[in-house]
């Protein structure tokens, strides 16, 4: 068998000495050179930790290896210097914003070449050549702050390509970008694999972009076991394993949600709505228009999905609904014009769960967070003990399965738990309308089902109105009663794949 590109033998790892359990326990895994391998596993099983270990970033940047060894193209990881290692394996991260230390791609490419001690006289030509090869000459001198998420991920790939890494590890590279860019970057990676034999190892909870090209799927199970040898030919045999691990099965139609009978009354009506980019409660000149004369109707007691590419205005529309963004035309909430509703009243009516839930915690304790949600104001930890409010908060945490974390800081919870806590604390406020910005961001299938199922229950039992933005067409089909797509500065209702402008 050919030398694997990356290999872990009996690898055990924990983040802190005092942790009772290892995050990874006796893991044995091999990623072959020159192949495209997908690494899957349920949320929190240690995929990202394993990737960081195999990229040589842990334990140097945190944690302790308590046993086993890592090999990179047959050599022990420890035998590589950092620049040598970068030329063997490089990693692309989930968050496109946090990958660059320079201002433009040209500077960043030069920084990479300096790192591997490239002779200065060759640098300019090599950087330009790498950018040209991946079709990115036009991005070279644009500041990163002006690039979209997809463009930034493309720029990150350009750096990896320039370093000449023989293996690329990607940790959920498409979590923050829309399907258009995800497909383009996946194409580029496949081309690198075909042309240069670069080993591609991707952590992804969606197989959609890789179905036509992957060589093997490996699933990291609990207790250090790895299920390997899943290929395109025998994938069908593993459907039950996918389900058992809470992973999304890529084939077969999702059971689409069938809206209940009877027209429900409108909760929000948009008419002739004009929105432009740029934050602010006052319309500014020069910002591009996101919506022009858009019409839509969101019904009470329904879940509505908002879809469209990154930057199309989904979050901006949410800001407008919350009275934080200037708009033209009309937004009527419960029959009243949004602009005329006092802000406090608006916030009593509408709640929002942010894309990154860690942005919205207002206390340093899970129980307190729930209590604040119930009370609608800050509640001191000391003032909470033994009160009726504490009992209510605990009951709420139990309902959301967060009870055992009540003494934790919200920031110590996993991504999925953080999102549940965010939803919980907003729902506790008893607002009738809930906005969710990308609720599936960074979640596996099981976690997504849990959150969406919970919302569905609230919608059906309590008549909650839910509006959620997503890139994921399957999610929208499965959970939403109605779906609107941002298309050509309008909102198009999508019924069974047919666009219908407006209501």
């Amino acid at each position, binding site marked *: 068998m050919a030398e694997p590109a990356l290999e872990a033998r009996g690898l055990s790892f924990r983040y802190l000495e005092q942790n009772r359990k290892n995050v990874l326990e006796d893991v044995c895994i091999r990623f072959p050179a020159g192949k495209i391998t997908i690494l899957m596993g349920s949320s929190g099983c240690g995929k990202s930790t394993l990737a960081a270990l195999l990229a*040589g970033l842990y334990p140097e940047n945190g944690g302790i290896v308590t046993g086993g060894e890592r090999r990179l193209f047959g050599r022990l990881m420890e035998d590589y210097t950092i620049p040598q290692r970068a030329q063997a394996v490089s990693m692309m991260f989930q968050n496109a914003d946090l990958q660059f230390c320079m201002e433009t791609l040209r500077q960043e490419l030069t920084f990479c070449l300096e790192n591997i001690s490239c002779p200065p006289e060759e640098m300019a030509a090599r950087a330009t050549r790498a950018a040209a090869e991946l079709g990115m000459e036009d991005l070279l001198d644009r500041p990163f702050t002006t690039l979209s998420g997809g463009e930034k991920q493309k720029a990150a790939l350009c750096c990896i390509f320039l370093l000449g890494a023989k293996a690329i590890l990607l940790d959920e590279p498409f979590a923050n970008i829309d399907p258009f860019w995800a497909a383009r970057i996946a194409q580029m990676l496949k081309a690198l694999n075909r042309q240069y034999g670069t080993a591609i190892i991707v952590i992804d909870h969606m197989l959609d972009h890789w179905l036509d090209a992957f060589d093997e799927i490996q699933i990291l199970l609990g207790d250090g076991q790895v299920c390997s040898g899943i290929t395109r030919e025998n994938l069908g045999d593993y459907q039950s394993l996918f389900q058992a691990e809470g992973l999304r099965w890529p084939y077969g139609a999702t059971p689409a949600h069938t809206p209940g009978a009877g027209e429900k009354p409108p909760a929000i009506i948009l008419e002739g709505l004009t929105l432009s980019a740029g934050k602010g409660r006052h319309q500014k000149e020069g910002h591009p228009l996101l919506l022009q004369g858009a019409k839509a109707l969101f019904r009470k007691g329904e879940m509505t999905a908002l879809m469209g590419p990154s930057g199309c205005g989904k979050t901006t529309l949410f800001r407008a609904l919350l009275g934080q963004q200037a708009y033209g035309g009309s937004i009527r909430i419960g029959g009243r014009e949004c602009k005329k509703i006092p802000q406090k009243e608006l916030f009593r009516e509408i709640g929002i769960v*942010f894309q990154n839930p860690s942005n919205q915690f207002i206390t340093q304790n899970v129980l307190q967070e729930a209590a604040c949600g119930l009370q609608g104001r800050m509640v001191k930890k000391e003032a909470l003990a033994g009160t009726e409010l504490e009992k209510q908060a605990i009951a709420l945490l139990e309902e959301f399965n967060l009870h055992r974390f009540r003494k934790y800081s919200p920031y110590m919870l996993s991504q999925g738990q953080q999102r549940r806590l965010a939803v919980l604390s907003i729902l506790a*406020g008893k607002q009738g309308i809930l906005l969710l910005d990308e609720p599936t961001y960074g979640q596996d299938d099981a976690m997504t089902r849990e959150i969406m199922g919970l919302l569905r229950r609230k919608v059906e039992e309590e008549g909650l109105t839910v509006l959620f933005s997503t890139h994921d067409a399957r999610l929208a089909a499965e959970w939403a009663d109605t779906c609107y797509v941002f298309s050509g500065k309008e909102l198009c209702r999508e019924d069974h794949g047919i666009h219908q402008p407006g209501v």
Partner: protein
Amino acid sequence: MKTMESINPVFKMGAVLLSAVILTFNHAVILNLLVFAAGMVLILFFSRAEKRRLLKFLLPIGLIITALFITGYKNAEQTLLASFATGTHGLGGLASMSPVYTGLQLSTRVLAYVGLGLLFSLTTPAEDMVLSMMHQLRVKPKFAYGILAAFHLVPNIARELEDAKFAYKVRGISCGPFALQPFFAAMVNCIRWSENLAMAMESKGFDGDGKRTYARILSVRPADIIILIAVPLLVLLGTLFLKY
């Protein structure tokens, strides 16, 4: 034409810092005004700095300077009245004790510091500063690039803080513009980012202590040395010979 950007950043910083130290011993309003004016002329006519950015800084600073003038004025007025009342007022120090003059001394000194600070910050690209720190001051790349990376994160931090404040508002909890709680959320995220960014840099082969080559090495020219010596010297002469 040579611009302010072509001066070696470390030498430019040295000249600015030395001048600022000398200015702390200065009492002459004229010198303060001259330093500020020189800074503005250099930014406006001998640099590639964006003029709008200069204005953005100057407007709030103008308010602070005015407030300082009033503070100095009021304070001196009271001291003067008190010394007349107690009969301890001597004839010699009349000019220097004038409330207007004291107000001017206080406010123009800050103005001079502002002029020097803006001259340096608006005409020095962050990347050049970091290169110069590594080449002239022998600062380790780990430290120098760390500063640069943090510098580029600033817009994200501002955005994060805005989101955190918004979260409070939406939950119906009012917090003032200087409330500390939103900073906590933003800070937690910043720490997480810095770890992420450090790993991304290492993944691109960055070894903070190891060997590396440089596409550009900022050299030291005779003009840089002259600037380092001449600018503080001029300020020193001003301090010695300018009376008011």
